[in-house]
């Protein structure tokens, strides 16, 4: 069981015990979000960069609820539809307090929220050259994943289904192909709906999962956060344990010798 303790998620040379990354959007309040993070056991949370509300000076700040010294903030580029906006957003994020580990997501399609891979590739290259450590939201095309890797990405984060759809993993084969071809951290980023989806992702060999809506919009977000935490651990342990091979024949579990 010692191997489990040593089994850390390593992203851009940083080590993490938890393989569950959670988003901080869509919660009813910041305190609800902070509590859900605690239940999830996540050590990395995604955050968005937005204008400060200058007309309400006393509005609470995310940093007052989630301490960036204890939890790794992963600034994202949600809402960016081109490379220029994504770069601007992440350069600002870095300026807030030295954040270099970032999540790049350049969307191309407002209806399905699919990533624009041409813009994503271009942006990854620029960010990597500027010293950012880039975790990249991408589609499930193994060829694109390879190109991202060659462009300097620090983690490949394909969708399992459209963002916020809750459909679960629709592309198991592609995820497995990407798993086989890359040593980079592979993290499922989008589309999960329930805890078992996270287990399946981990059993496919993913290094982690990123979940927001499935927890934030569950009827009981705290319970769901805990369920996802356990599901990720279970899936990882299952993956590490080496599953049996599949057979279409029955194979009795009890000895056939000595039957009375």
């Amino acid at each position, binding site marked *: 069981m010692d191997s489990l303790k040593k089994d850390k998620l390593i992203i851009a040379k940083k080590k993490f015990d938890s393989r569950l990354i959670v988003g901080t959007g869509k919660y009813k309040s910041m305190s609800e979000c902070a509590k859900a993070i605690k239940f999830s056991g996540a050590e990395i949370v*995604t955050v968005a*960069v937005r*204008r400060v509300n200058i007309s309400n000076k006393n509005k609470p700040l995310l940093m007052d609820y989630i301490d960036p010294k204890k939890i790794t903030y992963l600034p*994202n580029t949600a809402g960016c539809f081109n490379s220029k906006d994504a770069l601007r957003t992440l350069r600002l994020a870095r300026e807030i307090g030295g954040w270099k580990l970032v999540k790049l997501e350049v969307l191309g399609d407002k209806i399905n929220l699919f990533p624009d891979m041409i813009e994503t590739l271009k942006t990854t290259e620029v960010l990597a050259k500027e010293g950012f450590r880039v975790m990249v939201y991408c589609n499930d095309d193994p060829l694109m994943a390879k190109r991202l890797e060659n462009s300097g990405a620090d983690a490949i984060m394909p969708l399992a289904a459209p963002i916020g759809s809750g459909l679960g993993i629709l592309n198991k084969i592609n995820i497995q192909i990407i798993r086989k071809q890359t040593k980079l951290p592979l993290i499922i980023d989008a589309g999960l709906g329930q805890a078992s989806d996270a287990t399946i992702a981990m059993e496919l060999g993913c290094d982690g999962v990123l979940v927001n809506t499935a927890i934030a919009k569950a009827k009981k977000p705290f319970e769901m956060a805990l369920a996802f935490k356990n599901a990720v651990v279970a899936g990882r342990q299952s993956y590490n344990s080496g599953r049996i091979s599949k057979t279409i024949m029955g194979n009795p579990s009890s000895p056939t010798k000595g039957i009375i």
Partner: protein
Amino acid sequence: MKKIKIKVNGKVKTVLNNYKLSDLLKYLKIPIKKVAIELNQEIIDKKRTSNIKLKKDDKIEIVHFIGGG
């Protein structure tokens, strides 16, 4: 004293002609350590805001982290 119009986070504000960026941040009670600031699309070194005099039609963006997926 002459007044000038500037834009802060998309909203028009009228300030005194000799207003500095640091004065504006103080007036808006901005927690400097938790934000990033852009002046006309260029990121500003937060330590140097008292050296920057605001000019007519300057566009200032002050951003921070909020919840997001």
